[in-house]
């Protein structure tokens, strides 16, 4: 690896660090990096930063907010000319939610998503994020935001959200 490439890597890493502090507007305990929304960070030869963002759901109202808060965070760090690029393919999957993201969701009271490949088949038991019981039932495949389904725990009686698997 040449010295130039190492410099570029360090700059990209700095941008990744910045993006790890940009919260999801609807679930602010997780960042856009935790959710797998940031697909790449590239620093071009002319020094301009390019960030690839993918929408989670086609109609997610948070997409526009994520775009503007990402642009603002980059501008505040001196990357006012950063270019945000929409990435559609491959489509976002809940499998891209990082291990750290899953842990944060669970701590916040949202059951993290199961592997998407299982979502089409028999649903795996979803653990209650409050008491850990597997005696839970799905109330609705749809919840308070496009990315969540609605569950109830039979053990502790509490309703909770699950991050949908797609």
């Amino acid at each position, binding site marked *: 690896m040449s010295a130039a490439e190492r410099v570029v890597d360090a700059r990209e890493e700095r941008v990744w660090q910045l993006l790890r502090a940009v919260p999801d507007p609807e679930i602010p305990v997780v960042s856009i990096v935790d959710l797998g929304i940031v697909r790449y960070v590239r620093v071009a030869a002319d020094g301009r930063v390019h960030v690839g963002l993918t*929408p989670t*759901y*086609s*109609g*997610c*109202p948070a997409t526009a907010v994520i775009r503007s808060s990402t642009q603002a965070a980059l501008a505040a760090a001196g990357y006012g000319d950063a270019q945000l690029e929409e990435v*559609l*393919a*491959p*489509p*976002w*999957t809940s499998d891209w939610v990082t291990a750290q993201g899953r842990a944060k969701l669970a701590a916040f009271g949202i059951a993290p998503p199961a592997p998407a490949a299982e979502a*089409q088949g028999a649903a795996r038991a979803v653990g209650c994020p409050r008491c850990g019981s597997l005696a839970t039932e799905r*109330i*609705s*495949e*749809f*919840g*308070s935001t*496009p990315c969540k389904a*609605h569950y109830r725990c039979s053990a502790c009686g509490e309703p909770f959200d699950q991050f*949908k698997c*797609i």
Partner: protein
Amino acid sequence: MSAGVAGVARRERSLEQALCRYVLRLGDTSLVLGQRLGEWIGHAPALEEDLGLANLSLDLIGQARLLLSYAGELEGRGRDEDALAFLRDAPEFLNLTLAEQPNGDFADTIVRQWLIDAWQLEIYEGLAGSTDSRLAAIAAKALKETRYHYRFSSNWLIRLGDGTEESRRRAQRALDSLWRFTAELFAPDEVDERMATAGIAPPLAAAAGRFAARIAADLGAATLTAPGSHAYPWHGKRGVHTEHLGHLLGEMQHLQRTYPGARW
């Protein structure tokens, strides 16, 4: 030589225009159905279904935005997604006639949704392998959402059909009244044929067979009877609509028509 080059350029331009119409049809179908579902917000039979229908609506409008943006670029006249959604009149809309049919009761909404979900499953699955990479990317994304839309609508169809006497009667009535609009779903015209020949869209004949098998299996589980064939000559995808679309657009476009250029 130069005449040959001009001929090739003309054919490419006309293929692009056909693609534009094709993408408009997909986008308009999603937009109009999304708008219809939005009318249920605050009125659905239960809170969970209210959220479910709103969620489907949001996905469909999101898909419409991606498709209409692309159609606007293909058209090359500077119209963006908003101009296409809010500033066209009914004859310029190319959605399937089925999508614009009124919500009726919950059974009407579910049957309409189930038919279009099953249609979109076939179309998006085919488009995910399109030679047009932009359309392939939109379709691959939309397909994931359509799968759970179909799960929602087909589960409800079965619950209503194989439910109480009243729910079964209403589901069958909805099926009988909406069935006439299904002939349009897989009847190819010259745009569909050009798209299939270019490898952009799936051939409708093969998709029609899979659709029919899926519909028959669901109807069996729902203990409902497929009506005899009585196709109506509606061609929403050619801009010939039922009177319902104008009313829908009247509401959807009200703000932009009253305050042209208004922005958030």
